[in-house]
């Protein structure tokens, strides 16, 4: 059991009491009344807490060690997964996993960040921070998928692309740049879902598609709250990180209002980590529906719509075109 999130101590206390009562299960009438009462109380508390998470609390939920990751969804909602490894140039980055997969009746290519659950796995995955070879691998497999008209699903969950000496030497910026450009014109449907952390360029590197969704308590941001706090207040601490998270407008609600995502996927009560299967079911039906819709579109139209989706992003003022406008 992971350490409780700081704002969840009351919830955890209730959950413990409930567990003890249920285990004690000498189902006297009194006991079961008590269990029912505590369940009601717990669900009320969860509802109250989770319907009003602050942006910083959302970031903490998105990073919860028990939150389902790409490989958890593989076992929960995909009928088959044939992992495809290696970037054909340098290595095989464990922070991004790729493979053919079966989702319902659809054959797809799945690409997703993996952070790992155990310490060993986390270290092997660099905590979900991909190196250039991860983006090269992903793009190679996505091109393969496009060649055979397989829809692509990208599950995004990274604090950011790995910042290190080797990553820079091997062209971190170059590989992300190439991936973004190529994804914009891959001739097959692409559905991207931010399932946890949407950390900056590392997220966008597998984040260009026809549908962009974010789980309710996931976030997507240009910079981490820690990085932002460090720049604005010189130090990232318990006081500045929440302020930065607030300023960045990184929650699903904000993202939707800024027009950068298509859908928000509702999470189970108390977050995806409490009911991973329920989250899986929601995600699966969203993916199936999106792929079904996108598959009916002619390729030209699909690519035009993808272009126009990103073309519209941005907020600026455009006063009536004066002499400074383009005249040609």
């Amino acid at each position: 059991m992971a350490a409780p999130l700081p704002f969840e101590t009351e919830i955890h206390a209730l959950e413990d009491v409930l567990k003890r009562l249920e285990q004690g299960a000498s189902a006297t009438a009194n006991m079961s009344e008590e269990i029912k009462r505590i369940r009601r109380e717990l669900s009320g508390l969860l509802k109250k807490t989770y319907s009003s998470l602050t942006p910083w609390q959302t970031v903490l939920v998105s990073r919860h060690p028990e939150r389902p990751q790409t490989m958890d969804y593989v076992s929960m909602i995909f009928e088959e997964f044939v992992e495809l490894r290696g970037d054909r140039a340098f290595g095989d980055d464990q922070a991004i996993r790729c493979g053919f997969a079966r989702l319902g009746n659809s054959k797809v290519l799945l690409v997703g960040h993996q952070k790992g659950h155990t310490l060993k796995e986390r270290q092997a995955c660099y905590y979900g921070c991909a190196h250039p070879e991860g983006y090269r691998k992903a793009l190679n497999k996505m091109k393969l998928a496009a060649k055979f008209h397989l829809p692509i699903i990208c599950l995004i969950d990274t604090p950011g692309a790995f910042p290190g000496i080797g990553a820079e030497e091997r062209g971190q910026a170059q590989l992300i740049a190439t991936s973004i450009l190529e994804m914009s014109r891959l001739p097959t449907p692409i559905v991207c879902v931010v399932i946890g952390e949407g950390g900056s360029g590392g997220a966008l590197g597998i984040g260009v598609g026809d549908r962009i969704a974010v789980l309710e308590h996931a976030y997507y941001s240009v910079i981490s709250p820690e990085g932002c706090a460090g720049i604005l207040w010189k130090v990232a601490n318990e006081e500045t990180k929440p302020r930065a998270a607030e300023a960045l407008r990184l929650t699903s609600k904000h993202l939707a209002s800024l027009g950068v995502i298509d859908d928000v996927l509702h999470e189970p009560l108390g977050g995806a980590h409490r009911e991973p299967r329920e989250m899986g079911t929601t995600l699966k039906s969203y993916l199936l529906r999106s792929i079904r819709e996108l598959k009916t579109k002619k390729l030209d139209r699909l690519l035009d719509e993808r272009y126009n989706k990103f073309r519209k992003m941005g907020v600026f003022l455009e006063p009536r075109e004066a002499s400074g406008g383009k005249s040609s």
Partner: protein
Amino acid sequence: MSTRTNRGIPEGLWMPCPRCKATLYKKEVQSRLGVCNECGHHFTISARERIDQLLDEDSFEEWFTHLRPCDPLGFIDKVPYAKKLEETQAKTGMSDAAVVGKGFIRGRAIVLCITDFQFMAGSMGSVVGEKLTRAIEEATRLSLPLVIVSGSGGGARMQEGILSLMQMAKVSCALARFDQAGGLYISILTHPTMGGVAASWALQGDLTLAEPGAMVGFAGARTIWNTVRLELPEGFQTSEFLLEHGFVDRIVHRKDLRTEVALLIDYCEHK
């Protein structure tokens, strides 16, 4: 940003070179295109100076000057973003960090985009993304070669949050179409080109040129240090480092840029 040494050419008659520490006569540096006459250090220069250096005299026609940034996030900072924009606009006389338009380089028509380091470190927000995208779309429509001179310390502009990040995708989409249409894109990296700018259009060129000694990379030195706690090698994330690792075609001295760009354009005509 790890270095704040070369923020353009300071006021006054004399100026120090941040690299060789020589005291330089400002007028002389200017006459040498903003390059130290002792050690060849390339100072950052404004978009206007860049246009004068690169293009044929008075040939630049600026586009989309009416686009203005705003504060869509109501960004909370020591100075509110809206106020910071006003101050920077007053100080620089620019509306935002990008200048785009059409001009001639030794008689060859091109579309030119420049990000100016003076304006919030050349960072990319909605206006920069929109201006570049429109310019690229125009280059596609007019079948003209495209030259983008990048210089951005911060990459994506934090104060516009996720909207800045999405400008990377928007500009990339336009560049993909430009490429599909057979356009030639020459990317010129100048000091500094970092983060989201490096991880999008700056490294999507058909040809990538870099000025000597420019800092170019994805993660800032401080971020890397915080993550791996390793001493960064000498010359890490410089143009020369990128050349050595295979990410740049040529390093070009500022005085040769104009000739080189014209030369490269002539090799890539559809004739």
